[in-house]
């Protein structure tokens, strides 16, 4: 009897208040939910942004190091080169890697860039300037770390600029190409001369000289990157 009276009382008088309390609880719940979604989205966005910046920094390093190696090769192939040995080349390359390391540290990343020497303590990298060939071989160990990810890899270089020729009855077909670990790129739009005389550029890495090459002829190829390759017949 008493219970029924209470029920009746609640039904009649407190229905609105109960509804109000429920509405407040629901509102708080919804606001918390919105906040959680917002925070999750925000955290995810911040993480994504930092990862993008981190990868951009690595890309900057890789782009410049790739270009650095080619420039080093170009410098090495020039008559007045500052690179006189593989050890000097190693020191110059390591200087660049140290500079890149400092840049990464300034950005707040942990970075270790080291040459993985071909023969430890003897030959850090290998530069060759031979007849018809200018090449570079070397490996760089890369370790980078930010709050959300790390990059552990090795940049491996084996690049060779090469000049070859084939004599025909009336002329000589000279090929100028760069050979990497991944592919062979034929170098068009370069400057190829025979005994300082011009050749006809077919723009696909093939150059035609007006006569067959004979002993003592000197073929010089200069790529867009200023890598000079000399081939003495």
């Amino acid at each position: 009897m008493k219970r029924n009276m209470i029920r009746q009382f609640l039904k009649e008088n407190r229905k609105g208040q109960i509804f109000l309390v429920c509405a407040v609880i629901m509102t708080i719940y919804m606001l918390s939910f919105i906040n959680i979604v917002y925070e999750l989205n925000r955290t995810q966005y911040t993480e994504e942004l930092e990862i993008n910046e981190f990868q951009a920094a690595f890309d900057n390093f890789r782009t410049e190091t790739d270009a650095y190696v080619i420039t080093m090769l170009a410098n090495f192939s020039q008559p007045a080169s500052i690179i006189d040995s593989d050890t000097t080349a190693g020191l110059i390359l390591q200087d660049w890697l140290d500079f890149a390391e400092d840049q990464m540290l300034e950005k707040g990343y942990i970075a270790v860039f080291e040459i993985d020497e071909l023969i430890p303590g003897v030959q850090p990298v290998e530069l060759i300037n031979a007849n018809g060939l200018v090449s570079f071989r070397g490996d760089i160990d890369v370790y980078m770390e930010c709050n959300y990810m790390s990059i552990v890899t090795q940049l491996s270089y084996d690049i060779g600029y090469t000049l070859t020729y084939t004599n025909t009855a009336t002329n000589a077909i000279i090929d100028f190409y760069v050979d990497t670990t991944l592919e062979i790129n034929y170098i068009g739009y370069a400057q190829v001369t025979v005994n300082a005389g011009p050749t006809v550029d077919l723009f696909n890495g093939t150059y035609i000289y007006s006569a067959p090459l004979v002993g003592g002829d000197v073929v010089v190829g200069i790529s867009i990157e200023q890598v000079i390759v000399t081939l003495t017949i």
Partner: protein
Amino acid sequence: MLIQSGVIYMAPVLKLRIQRKRRGQLFLIEVFIALSVLILLMIAIYQVEFSSDETYPDNLSEIGYNTLEALNQAGTLKPLVYNLQTTELTNILDNALAENVFWRLSVEDDTGTNIFSLYWERTPPADASVGVVDYFLFGYDTILNQYRVIHLELWRLVG
């Protein structure tokens, strides 16, 4: 009369039946409305422009990096930086970046000595989200170890 009396007699029963039937339907409609509101709310949350929040980071640094990287890949950046072609560099960056993105730039060597600055008199508003890029270069042409660090700051004029 019989029918009339029948109708008169049956009316409250029918009303009750309809009410009972409709109560379920009404409840169902309510549920649908509530679910629709929830879904709309969820969509609205994901579509909110968070950039209006001052502390929320913008992707300006990414835009700045992509611009410098594209110029470097195209072989345009180094000649301008190493030959101190500041007017050309200013024009090229003005054209590459959106009109509502303000920027300023300084170029330093490896010791931190300033080589030149562009638009350095510009100061980002205190409440602006500023994107910062430090892009480094090793040298130009066959020159090695002439390092340069391009420090680029970007912020939006509006929003």
